[in-house]
């Protein structure tokens, strides 16, 4: 009997479903759409590509260390939000895009997120190290967090070491006797 009442009540009510393409879906405030970049904020540390669980966010060399591109492949993205959480400068954010329909697979890949990487090259062996803005970000953080008495010396050391590639850096550290191997 209870169910009969429920059925009769349902007859008078409007339908719970909505006409989807005509009426857009209502999204919660915390909706996680596929992530998008803010180029000005990005420091090219590529933390996002190293934490991505599906390999949707990846780095591609397009001209042998001269130009590197960061790509988000929407066909692989699961909107887990890990890249957004890990980004140190909040350069990534979730879009409010929910209808990811496309006629061709290539349309899914967000090619507009191509970020230019101006590589610093090692002063010893000319190997590309990392982007200028990445080094600047680390230097800024160092000068912010270090106590006054060691700041200048540390920044000088940082300048010296950050102009070298990892291999040359190890060589220099061994020469100066500051390599961690000493304590191993």
């Amino acid at each position, binding site marked *: *009997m*209870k*169910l009969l009442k*429920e*059925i009769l009540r349902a007859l008078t009510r409007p339908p*719970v479903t909505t006409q989807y393409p005509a009426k857009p879906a209502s999204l*919660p*405030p*915390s*909706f*996680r759409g596929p992530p998008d970049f803010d180029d000005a904020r990005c420091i090219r540390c590529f933390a996002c590509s190293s*934490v*991505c*669980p*599906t390999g949707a966010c990846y780095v591609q060399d397009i001209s042998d260390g001269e130009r590197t591109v960061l790509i988000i492949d929407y066909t692989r993205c*699961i*909107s*887990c*939000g*890990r890249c957004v*959480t890990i980004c140190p400068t909040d350069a990534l954010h979730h879009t409010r895009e929910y209808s990811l329909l496309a006629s061709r697979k290539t349309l899914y890949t967000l090619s507009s997120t191509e970020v230019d990487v101006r590589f610093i090259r090692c002063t010893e062996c000319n190997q590309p190290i990392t982007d200028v803005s990445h080094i600047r970000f680390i230097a800024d953080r160092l000068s912010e967090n270090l106590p006054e008495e060691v700041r200048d010396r540390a920044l000088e050391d940082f300048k010296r070491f950050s102009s070298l590639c990892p291999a040359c850096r190890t060589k220099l550290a061994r020469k100066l006797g500051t390599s961690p191997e000493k304590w191993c």
Partner: protein
Amino acid sequence: MEQRTFHQNIFLAERVCGICNTAHAICYCTAVERLLGISPPHRAQLLRILLAELERIHSHLLLIGLVADLAGFRTLFMYAWKIREHVLDAIERITGSRRHSGMVTIGGVSRPVPGKDLASARRSLLVLAKELPKLLSIMKESTTLKRRCRGVTEVDKQTARKIGFVGPNARASGLKLDVRAAEPYLPYAELDWKPVLGEFGDSFERLIVRAREAYQSLRTALICIKRLLSESGPLTVEYQLRAGEGIARVEAPRGELVYYLAAESTAHPSFVRIRTPTMLNLSAIVQLLPGLRVADVPIAIGSIDPCMTCCDRVTVLSAQSAAVLARIPLRALTTWKP
């Protein structure tokens, strides 16, 4: 899982099951936390309980609808799935998506939940609180459901223990088997929570126990929201990776879920093992199938809430004696010969 980092595995663990993904994420993270020797902050634990209980409501309502459909009671199927939308709305409001929240992380919860979202989730849960007792009374009064499900695969307490039922199936037979009570991995004791027990242990009772459990989970979730709105605190703790092993048991909507993992001091676990509750429930129900009418078989299998994708293995039974001949993984089935 052994090829991905600890953090990447959270999202992979979440995708083992489409219905009980938060249980998988909580179980995996609890195992990693035990390996690292850390414990998440209190607010993160409350949020985990909230997510787990909302998921339990949605999972139970989904199954009630499915079994009603199997029993030929389409209207109840539609009704159960209609009121399930309220809990999905609440989950969407809290986590940002209907399923696959991606919120549970190692050492706590990854995103804060604004009070506004919690309050709005509470509103849709209050609507559900009016509908759930109605659902239970419809189920109890319905002659269709009763005549199709009463007495099908009736299991008493001892047999339930012997054949290895877990979760609501065991509790429907009166067996007090609940990880939340036996090994509290989250502070359930604070929230005035007790396991729900049935008595008859047949297919009908299993549904009723699930409906009652959904109601109790709703109560727990509402208390949880009240607590979360009134107190604040950190969401994560810092940790350092180390070698060791961790094992965690979690009460998923279908029963006991176990994750075991071992690690050397790298960013990847060196070994991960998962045991899903359906593995136990399914191998238990096949022992009860012989002698049943063919029409009752879908009801019997449906009533244990099977999640076949969580359970990619096959059990081979002898046609004469119903003895278990072999248990084989689905992948090896193509090359398997009797």
